[in-house]
């Protein structure tokens, strides 16, 4: 196991003072402008949100064991999946990688002391927290039952639940996302260390850059859309109400103009993580570096012209349907490029199987499946049958859980030694990775079958013919839950009892591995100068 080599070979000697122990007390955390501490603030917040969202999922899966519903009233079930969707999308997956790992790593990876606007960075976190508190408050005081997509006129005129409050929560959180994106764009443009040219940047930076573009260009639109919805709900002005000439589909256009690109906000940073994991554990520069880098940008751009594929059967014109379908296929190509390049990177590598690498392997396989089932939906004829069924639920959990969440877990494990200065217990980690993989497939694969059989999503009760598959899925969810729970325990355990990590436990390349773990407050004691990216085989500072 290469983790054993925990020496301080490269990198400066440990001075003993780092960003964690430079100052103490709640205030030093709540008022910090250090990007690393802000990253940790986010880590705690999104983990909490994940647990809340996951708890909702567990209740839902339990409920669905019986066709007539085992636990909840339909109304309550509707609130559960809505809250699950809203929390998982807006409060977990969208901020998860960019705001935690991104915040922590971007300045270090490009050799900067901090992001361009540290105070703005802290503000983003507070904005996020305010949005989260409003949303959770609304959920606790009765919840919302519109689905995470808020389609009017149900949401604007008919729903009896706290739509407006949740909409405000999501609206506010949107600004957190915008500010973070803005900060990253400026940081990456203006704060790179000498020698860090665009094509020497780590692929994680490219991915974060592309993500930030989407956040900045898309989020304002969903913000204004939500305001229009709120206005409609409070004043009944009729913007989306067909009774007075409004068009409910216009809401869907404006919602998906953001929310489709948002799914790439969720997947691009994890893709960046996977690029880093694969290079580090196969000790090779990513195959086709520039293709992988450019495909991130391509995804970011093309993702904005495909949104209508969510509306194939909603009464959108068939001509628009054709346009959006063909564009949706285009967005699959850059993803294919990434998958193949990652696979090719392994060729003639020196591969080791630590837990982060297991997650990366899982990502490649599961994302491939999730992405390819996206093609079933981008294809007009089959989408007519599959739209609104569990096939879609399965598709997006394959990309969001099998893709984003798994890569996020991999990233957390990979950089955990850097973040905390401690190693996690490798055996437990491998076991958990395996459990997550098995549990995940058991949970969501049956949903593909269910969907093709015709089981509609968002159903609190369902015809008995779907029961077998539902029970399988629920069984899988319990395995998955255990798989998530184990890391939670041992990562917390390692904070105290983990072995000291040293600056570079993996023998990886990249600026973050040249400094102490945990890093000092200003990141670099001497300003770095970059000569080459991913220099695994060449000369210069091999780790032994």
């Amino acid at each position: 196991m290469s983790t054993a080599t925990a020496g301080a070979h490269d990198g400066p000697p440990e001075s003993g003072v780092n960003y964690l122990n430079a100052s103490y007390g709640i205030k030093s955390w709540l008022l910090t402008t250090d990007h690393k501490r802000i990253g940790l603030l986010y880590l705690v917040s999104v983990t909490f949100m994940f647990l809340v969202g996951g708890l909702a999922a567990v209740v839902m899966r339990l409920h669905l064991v019986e066709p007539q519903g085992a636990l909840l009233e339909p109304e309550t079930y509707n609130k559960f999946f809505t809250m699950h969707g809203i929390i998982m999308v807006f409060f977990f997956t969208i901020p998860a990688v960019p705001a935690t790992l991104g915040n922590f790593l971007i300045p270090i990876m490009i050799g900067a002391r901090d992001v361009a606007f540290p105070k703005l960075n802290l503000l983003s976190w507070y904005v996020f927290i305010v949005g989260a508190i409003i949303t959770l408050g609304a959920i606790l005081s009765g919840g919302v039952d519109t689905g995470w997509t808020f389609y009017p006129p149900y949401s604007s005129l008919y729903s009896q639940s706290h739509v407006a409050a949740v909409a405000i929560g999501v609206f506010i959180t949107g600004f957190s996302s915008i500010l973070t994106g803005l900060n990253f764009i400026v940081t990456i443009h203006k704060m790179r260390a000498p020698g860090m040219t665009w094509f020497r940047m780590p692929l994680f930076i490219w991915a974060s850059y592309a993500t930030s573009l989407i956040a900045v260009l898309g989020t304002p639109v969903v913000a204004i859309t939500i305001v229009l919805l709120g206005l409609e709900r409070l004043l009944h002005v009729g913007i989306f109400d067909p009774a007075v000439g409004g068009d409910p589909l216009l809401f869907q256009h404006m919602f998906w103009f953001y929310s489709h690109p948002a799914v790439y906000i969720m997947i691009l940073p994890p893709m960046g993580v996977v690029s880093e994991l694969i290079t580090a554990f196969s000790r090779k520069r990513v195959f086709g570096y520039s293709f992988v880098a450019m495909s991130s940008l391509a995804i970011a751009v093309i993702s904005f012209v495909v949104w209508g594929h969510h509306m194939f059967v909603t009464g959108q014109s068939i001509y628009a349907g054709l346009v959006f379908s063909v564009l949706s296929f285009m967005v699959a190509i850059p993803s294919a490029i990434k998958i193949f390049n990652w696979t090719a990177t392994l060729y003639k590598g020196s591969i080791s199987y630590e837990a982060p690498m297991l997650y990366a392997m899982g990502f490649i396989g599961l994302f491939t499946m999730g992405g390819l089932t996206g093609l079933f939906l981008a294809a007009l004829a089959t989408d007519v049958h599959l739209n609104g069924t569990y096939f879609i639920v399965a598709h997006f959990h394959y990309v969001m859980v099998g893709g984003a969440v798994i890569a996020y877990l991999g990233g957390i494990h990979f950089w955990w030694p850097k973040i905390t200065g401690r190693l996690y217990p490798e055996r437990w980690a491998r076991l958990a990775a395996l459990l997550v993989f098995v549990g995940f497939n058991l949970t969501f694969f049956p949903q593909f079958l269910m969907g093709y059989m015709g089981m509609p999503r968002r159903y609190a009760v369902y015809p008995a013919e779907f029961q077998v598959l539902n029970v399988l899925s629920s069984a899988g969810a319990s395995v998955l839950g255990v798989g998530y729970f184990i890391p939670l325990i041992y990562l917390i355990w390692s904070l105290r009892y983990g072995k000291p990590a040293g600056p570079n436990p993996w023998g990886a390349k990249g600026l973050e591995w040249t400094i102490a773990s945990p890093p000092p407050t200003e990141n670099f004691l001497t300003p770095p100068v970059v000569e080459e990216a991913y220099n695994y085989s060449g000369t210069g500072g091999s780790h032994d």
Partner: protein
Amino acid sequence: MTEAAAHGAHPPGFAHQFEDMQQQREAGNLGMWVFLVTEILFFGGMFTAYIVYRLLHYESFVTGSHLLEVKFGATNTYVLICSSLTMALAIRSAQTGKRKGQIIFWLILTMIFGALFLGLKFTFEWRHDYIEHIVPGFGFQYRPEWGSLGPGVQMFMCFYFFMTGMHAVHMIVGLGILTVLVIMTARNKFSPGYYAPLEISGLYWHFVDIVWIFLFALLYLIGGRY
């Protein structure tokens, strides 16, 4: 820490994460432009919805548009253009190292124009609309001559109030920023070497002006007035 110290004494307004003043200035500038792009898309969402409905309910929108008084819209356009000029001159004074009194003079003038805009809007225009019963949600009344165009007219008025309202909110934020700038100027924060806050706020102010230029054309002048 050590870096900035190595460069010698901190210039005023210098933040530790940057290498030098120029990097900081460029970063601030780029940040503002990126922010303005988000603003373009924020207002853009409303413009998109407006365009769609304008196409679907053309007659109603023309009818609605004719309820607005061009004289108010035009006057306010003039006022805003004046404020843009004074804002540009305020920045120029800082750039060329004029006395702080001069900078403050232009800033205050800008604020006066901004306040004039809002004053005209609230006390004349919106009051007029209220009396005419064309404020949706506040005593809106269909008029018989609209016939079944009524709902469309109401929709137009919604967009009118929503878009100009959003614009007014941006103006109010702008006035707040200008107040801060006046205080900063009074405290001698700016010099020809450092006037980034002025410059960046100027970008914001001009952007709000541009939004109004389009609102004027799209809301007041559609369908002609002949």
